[in-house]
């Protein structure tokens, strides 16, 4: 075995070993909440399913109403309902309903029902941002809002694959498509306002605020007892509007506190979250793992450069040797050719 091959094997073995060991000390650390992180606290127990948030979102973002959805067709009505049956390239927030059995009691798991509002989770460690090759998705370093820039986007849809919540939607039906997802109404936020959905929500189910405050509020609500009458802020956590309502009882978890590394869209409900269609994500973002493995292999392009050096050297020696042999055998009769040709059959 010649020396070049030994070197190659060593590098290959080192690479394989690195690839095989779990994300170790070289692991990319998890991301943290930005300093002025803002977000939404959605409380399903307050939600009355009026869909004002959906309508406000569409109005704010100039999205068309859907009329001929499959639901309508199935029920033989036309144009009565102007809401789609799921998030899609024209719907950036969606109210859906969970029902069980007789669906008699709100926010109860058995024989009950609950609403859930789905939209972009504005993750703390977003998979979509890690995935996008051209940085079309970016996270604001202060507010943490995940925004989309169609001028950078190439439409590869890797973000759709990466997002554990299946949020980014793509305009498959357009000739010049783009990705569509909630961006937390950047124009409104820039003007000191709040997202349209929170503005429209009559009951305070969608509440805008700074993340640390929202988390505190969420945990405060977890201490409430069913049947109590409590004050709930409406529209924005730091605002004046309040509303009294009876507590129906919470599932003891604030969804988004740790899920997928934490999200800036928090949820509370009376029903377990997997029943509300939330996926089985763990407490760490997959972006962390993907980047750890990728960087372990390619950090600073050191390993590839070394490998390239070794390879080029080996090839050079081989082709150089080949060249010398050819030069030496120049002018030999075609019989040599025939001898080479004999290798087949």
């Amino acid at each position, binding site marked *: 075995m010649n020396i070049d091959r030994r070197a190659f094997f060593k590098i290959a073995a080192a690479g394989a070993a690195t690839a095989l060991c779990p994300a170790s000390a070289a692991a990319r650390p998890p991301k943290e909440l930005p300093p002025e992180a803002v977000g939404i606290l959605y409380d399903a127990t307050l939600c*009355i399913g009026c869909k004002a*948030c959906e309508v*406000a979102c569409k109005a704010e973002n100039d999205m068309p109403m859907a009329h001929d959805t499959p639901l309508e067709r199935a029920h033989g009505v036309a144009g009565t309902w102007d809401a789609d049956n799921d998030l899609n390239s024209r719907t950036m927030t969606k109210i859906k309903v*969970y029902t069980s059995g007789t669906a008699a009691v709100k926010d109860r798991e058995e024989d009950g029902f609950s609403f*859930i509002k789905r939209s972009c989770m504005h993750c703390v460690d977003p998979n979509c941002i890690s995935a996008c090759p051209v940085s079309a998705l970016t996270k604001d370093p202060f507010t943490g809002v995940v925004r989309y820039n169609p001028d950078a986007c190439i439409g590869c849809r890797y973000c759709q694959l990466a997002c554990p919540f299946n949020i980014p939607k793509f305009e498959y039906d357009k000739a010049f498509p783009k990705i569509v997802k909630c961006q937390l109404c950047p124009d409104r936020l820039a003007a000191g306002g709040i997202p349209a959905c929170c503005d429209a929500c009559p009951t305070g189910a969608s509440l805008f605020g700074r993340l640390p405050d929202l988390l505190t509020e969420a945990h405060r609500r977890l201490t409430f007892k069913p049947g109590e009458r409590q004050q709930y802020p409406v529209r924005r956590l730091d605002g004046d509007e309040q509303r009294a309502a*009876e507590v129906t009882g919470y599932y003891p978890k604030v969804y988004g506190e740790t899920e997928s590394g934490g999200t800036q869209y928090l949820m509370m409900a009376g029903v377990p979250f997997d029943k509300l269609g939330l996926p089985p994500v763990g407490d760490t973002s997959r972006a962390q793992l993907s980047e750890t493995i990728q960087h372990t292999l390619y950090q600073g392009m050191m390993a590839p450069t070394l490998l390239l050096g070794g390879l080029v050297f080996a090839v050079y020696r081989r082709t150089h040797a080949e060249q010398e042999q050819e030069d030496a055998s120049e002018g030999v009769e075609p019989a040599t050719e025939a001898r080479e040709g004999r290798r087949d059959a």
Partner: protein
Amino acid sequence: MNRSAASRREPALGPYLSDQLDVYGISRRRFIEFALGITATLGLPLGMSGQVLAALEETKARPTVIWLHFQECTGCTESLLRATHPTVETLLLDLISLDYSETLLAAAGHQAEQALHDSLDKNKGAFILVVEGSVPLRDGGIYCKIADKTPQQMLLEIAPYAAAAVAIGSCASWGGVQSAAPNPTGAVGLPEALRIAGITKSDGSALPVITLPGCPASPYNLLATVLYYLTLKNLPELDAKGRPRFAYGHLIHDHCERRPHFDAGRFAEQFGDAGHRQGWCLYKLGCKGPETYANCPAIEFGDVGANTWPVGIGHPCFGCAEQGVGFHKALHEQADVESVTPPSLFPEIITRHAGGATAGAAAVAGAIVGGAVVYALGANEKLKQVEAESTAVAKSEAEEQK
């Protein structure tokens, strides 16, 4: 009213209502329309309109009604009067013999009390007691006195001899505006007053009480209840609070004409804004429709045309008929949505998306796989030949070498 001098001057045309239509200038067609309408209000199947019509036409025996007024504004009586265009409705009231009503009695003072006394004597056990207004309990109930008697005293004297009682209006049903905090008079509704005083019929059986809350109560609910009794000789189905289900069985929210706006999230935010002008849902302005049981959206107020009810004209319902809501919750405080039954077109958690196999795609895929298999088998055959040939060559070479 029916005992006015004017009607006394009319010649008797026969005991049946149907005989008297001409006198009042009512066409038979209008009469039937009215019967149909009231059948619908009662929540009865339209096929029963015949029976209702028959009851209207052929009733002779007019049940006696004693109408008591306690702590009230007389709005319910007024509303009943307003329902009486001088047409069919007037006739309908000819179906009952209103022996005593402080508002409507021509007599006054001792004569009025005498009328009451006489009616009681004559109709023991057979009259309908209608109560308008709440009963004060505090300080012995002295906050309301008629002919020097408190409502409780009057009830003790009168109620045991009634065949049934009707509490008309929110005040009589559960206390109404007088019972609003701090409820200085200790006002309660008729059912509560009867319960506290332990009043039953004279024979000891329970006195059936129908409550018709509303502020004012819709006269049509009263008229329909009376007609129901005349038609079917029975009281209509009541809920736990004594309210007829045909009128109070649904939340206003559940048959409001603006409900589609609620379901689509279109709300008026302020009076006069664009949404308000377009007739959007008034939930955010404090509409109590979602927690109030009544039939206002269906029968509306007055007889002046469509949309003549509060929400219809652009003001949120304040829940006047519902105890704990009307006069209790602030006008613009948001209602609890009592029954959030998701509409059937609400999207479910799991949405089925398109993208599965079509016949065409399966056919094309199948054809490709089939083609590939054919190719592979063909190649296999050719290679088999090649193998056979090379084996033959090898054999012949081996033989040559031998």
